[in-house]
């Protein structure tokens, strides 16, 4: 149980200082699961920076919040499974429907009628559900490096089973629940190494590994199994129902999710695609100025009345 010892150590690390602190914080509660939200700024419209996979918490938006909050009202929340939100057990607690319902609960708890959604990677699943099912609450959807099954994965990722024990720990064989329970940090180092392919990513890598160490590997297994429950046909059907303006931004060197997935999402939602040349899977962390300006440009393009 070395991993558990590391975990308790990680929790005692004091939080880093922030360029900007929230103006309001609180919890939304759904079926006994508490969700920690933060609000920054009070401009118009509201930008809702959604959680992504529970391997990290809302601080993955830290390079966006101070800039965007100068212009808009910015909401974030820790996705269930990480940060100051609860960590319910079982794969069923981590489906895209649960995350979408959580997001709606946060909108309600903060008295937010409508918002522009901003999502990263897996966040695309719940952003799409929200936009499709609650068009009255969503005025636009900005996707970064969406993790969607609309195009094939990188071939090297399709080789190994997540569920079955493997006889190798090489490369993407580490994306395996048994390996996670055996060498959680080893997986994190591998995974974030592939997320952050740009040079000079040491700080972002350290941040992500640190956030991921704030949860137990078993929780990450639950969250991954929950994501695997998301059916492709159901997702395709949701995409077709998205009516709001959409912008998809995807790095062409994303080693986690191929650029073709972003392109396919743009097509499926009738959205626009911006390709970030040379970018990996976390451009919000490694190209924050470009990403921030794109978000702002997108928000401004939505115009006043639609807000």
């Amino acid at each position, binding site marked *: 149980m070395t991993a558990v010892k590391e975990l308790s150590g990680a929790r005692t690390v004091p939080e880093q200082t922030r*360029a900007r602190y929230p103006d309001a914080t609180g919890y939304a509660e759904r079926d006994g699961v508490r969700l920690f939200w933060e609000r920054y700024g009070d401009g118009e419209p509201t930008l809702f920076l959604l959680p992504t996979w529970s391997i990290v918490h809302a601080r993955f938006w830290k390079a966006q919040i101070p800039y965007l909050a100068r212009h808009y009202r910015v909401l974030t929340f820790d996705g269930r499974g990480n940060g100051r939100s609860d960590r319910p057990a079982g794969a069923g607690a981590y489906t895209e429907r649960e995350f979408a319902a959580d997001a709606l609960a946060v909108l309600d708890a903060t008295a937010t009628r409508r918002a522009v959604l901003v999502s990263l990677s897996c966040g695309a699943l719940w952003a799409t559900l929200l936009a499709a099912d609650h068009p009255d609450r969503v005025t636009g959807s900005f996707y970064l490096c969406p993790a969607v099954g609309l195009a094939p994965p990188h071939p090297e990722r399709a080789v190994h089973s997540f569920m079955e024990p493997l006889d190798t720990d090489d490369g993407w064989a580490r994306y395996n629940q048994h390996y996670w329970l055996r060498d959680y940090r080893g997986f994190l180092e591998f995974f974030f190494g592939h997320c952050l392919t740009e*040079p*000079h990513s040491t700080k972002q890598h*350290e941040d992500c590994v640190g956030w991921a160490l704030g949860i137990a590997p078993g929780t990450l297994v639950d969250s991954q199994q929950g994501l695997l429950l998301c059916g492709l046909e159901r997702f395709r059907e949701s995409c077709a129902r998205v009516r709001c303006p959409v912008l998809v931004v995807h790095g062409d060197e994303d080693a986690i999710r191929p650029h073709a997935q972003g*392109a396919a999402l743009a097509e499926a939602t009738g959205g626009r*695609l911006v*390709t970030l*040349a*040379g970018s990996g899977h976390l451009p919000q962390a490694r190209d924050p100025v*470009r990403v921030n300006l794109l978000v702002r440009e997108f928000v401004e393009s939505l115009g006043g009345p639609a807000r």
Partner: protein
Amino acid sequence: MTLTMAAHDPARAARPGEQGEVERDGVRVCWERYGDGEPTVLLLPTWSIVHSRHWKAQIPYLARHLRVLTFDGRGNGRSGRPPTAGAYDDAEYVADALAVLDASATERAVLVGLSRGGRWAAGLAAARPERVLGAVLIDPAIAFVAPPHPGPVYPFDEELDTAEGWAKFNRHYWCRDYRGFLEFFAGQAFSETHSTKQIEDMVEWGLETTAETLVLTQLGAQPGSRAEVETILRAVRCPVLVVHGDDDRVRPHAAGAAVAELTGGTLVTIGGGGHCPQARHPVRVNLLLREFAESLGRRAT
């Protein structure tokens, strides 16, 4: 509709509102202005191992609130590279700063200087108090006021039989392996973790000049005694803020503390900070600069 954004776009977060150049004794000095708030902040050059982009993490923020001037110090960037050591005297850099104030029609400014730039800021504040609202000296390179870091002292001018550590701070080594020196020095200047980009920047900017030019900057006249330094520092009458990292491996923190005392200024210590906190602790430094400048701007109006 699709759009591709280039990977290594040399774009800046803020672009200058105005660019200009002044010439003194045939040496061209290129300056830039960003923003038009009040008061004006003149971000001075430092040692010509780098040019004015060393302020790149300050400019976009400060320019939203203040009027910001920068210029490339002679010896690097777009400014001239005069071929004699005398052209790199402290007095020349101070005179360049004044010339930039004149050329940009700036009556008075808050001076901000890093390392050698801190020394020049003190020199300008002492010599021309009517042009200076206040001075921020960041990890100032001011000798004689505190003991240097312990360790062997190597002569700059002589051929050495070692190139270990600070023995690389030697003109012959520079001319033999300039990049080797730049990488060593950047490694010392950036003692913080996660400094790979800042180290790469410094090495690249260093390569925009030559070992031979950098040797000349080292041979230019600088204060040569404690008495000389004290005279300058005690003559500074404007408000002074000294910012110094307590892990500065180039210039000891004790020197910054002594400078604060001699100028009657305030000392802010950056815990864990190295020699270039403006690059590695930009938010902290930016907030300090803005607070300091705005307090003086209010006083002036």
